[in-house]
């Protein structure tokens, strides 16, 4: 991928978080509990994007931020899915996921990869678990058939975004450390990642915009 294109895509991906952020400020008061948690997720994402890009502009290693961002993003996603997936899974399941992931991410940051390297263990693990939770939401929806107007359900849009983003980016997360010596390949991969990130931010926007029936 052309360097210019990759850099523009990355910039566009960074700015794309502004769309859901604006919607947060417009619709926060009117949203249900799930949408309020999605709002928190969007604000954390915005903070993460700002920190990542500020550190890059000072030519510093911004990967430590990614370790913390991964954990925060994971915890918030799990809390959001918990509301949608009970009683398919009991509350203790979600608590265990969070605690287990925190421990694993800690080891990944300070033992396996290190803070200054890409978290190629915890990020893919996070991807697998979140894809599983999104698919579980689909399964629960099909089983119960309670939601008539699916397009008004915030968790549907979130699940679509999660599945597209984490499925598309999974191989990037797994292999990025493997190809880090080739700038061209890295640029291409993260250019592709930027597209998926835009999709994820759009899914946040849709999830915040819709007016749920309950």
């Amino acid at each position, binding site marked *: 991928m052309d360097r210019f294109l990759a850099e523009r895509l990355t910039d566009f991906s960074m700015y794309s978080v502004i769309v859901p952020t604006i919607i947060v400020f417009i619709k926060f008061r009117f949203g249900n509990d799930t949408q309020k948690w999605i709002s928190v997720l969007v604000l954390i994402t915005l903070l993460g994007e700002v920190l990542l890009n500020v550190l890059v502009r000072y030519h510093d290693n911004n990967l430590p931020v990614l370790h913390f961002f991964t954990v925060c993003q994971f915890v918030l996603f799990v809390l959001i899915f918990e509301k949608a997936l009970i009683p398919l899974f009991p509350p203790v399941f979600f608590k265990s996921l969070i605690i287990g992931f925190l421990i694993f991410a800690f080891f990944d940051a300070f033992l396996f990869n290190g803070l200054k390297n890409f978290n190629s263990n915890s990020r893919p693990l996070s991807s697998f678990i979140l894809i599983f939770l999104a698919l579980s939401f689909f399964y629960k929806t099909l089983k119960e*058939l309670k939601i008539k107007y*699916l397009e008004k359900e915030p968790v549907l849009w979130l699940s679509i975004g999660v*599945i597209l983003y984490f499925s598309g980016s*999974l*191989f990037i997360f797994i*292999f990025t450390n493997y*190809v880090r010596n080739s700038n061209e390949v890295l640029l291409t*991969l993260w250019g*592709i990642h930027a597209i998926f990130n835009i999709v994820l931010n759009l899914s946040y926007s849709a999830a915040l915009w819709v007016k749920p029936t309950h």
Partner: protein
Amino acid sequence: MGETNALDLPVYLIFFGIMGMLLLAIAVIVFFLVYQKRLFAQRESIRLMEAAHQKNLLQYSFEAQEAERKRIASDLHDDMGSILSAARIYLRQLNPDKKTSEYQEIKEETTELLDSAITRLRVIAHNLFPPNLDRFGLKEACVDFCGRIEKVNNIKFSLYFDDALHFDKKEELALYRILQELTNNTLKHAQASTIDLVFHKVGGNFKMLYRDNGVGFSYDLLKIEEKGLGLKTIESRANAIGAQLSIMSEPDKGMTVKLSKPLPDYSVTSTS
């Protein structure tokens, strides 16, 4: 060159992996959205059909009620009306100038007519609501019913009633009416010589079997609108007490009706 080749493999693997995962993700999402809409539409359709069926059953229930009222009115008018009119004619003929023998004859004729009216009235009242059902329960009412049918028709009943069965008043009445309706159908159309009737308890369920050896009919080929009021009434009554009904009949193979319903658990837990 070797360094470049070592990177090529994982790069293609990564790209194919990304595309594969993305296509799979899109397929899953599209499948989910389409399937959910279809399932929902199907459930909605079933719900509407059930609502329409309930409405039809209610309508049939009203029709059956009206038909019953018409029959009672006809019985009262044709039977009772004519008997009592004849009795009145005889009584009008009574005057002190009549000879003792004529007086005696008129008295006997009138008494006979009034006896006939009372008997007929008892039959009508019995058909309306059998006194045995309220006083002695379903088993005695069935025994009495089968006996009366056997007396006036060339048909033999074989009845088995499990004493372990208990029903509430509403269920007893519904089951009795179902039996009346089925027997009515058999007498009118089946030309049967025997009817088997079984009420038994199987596990936690009540099962009723009604079977005649009549001419039968093609039940499976009957459309809803072709079903007589009797059959619809039977379905309606079974539905009202939460029972499952199945009717099986083929030409020359008689008719078999099975009814089943879970029994409530009347077991008493230990008390201190």
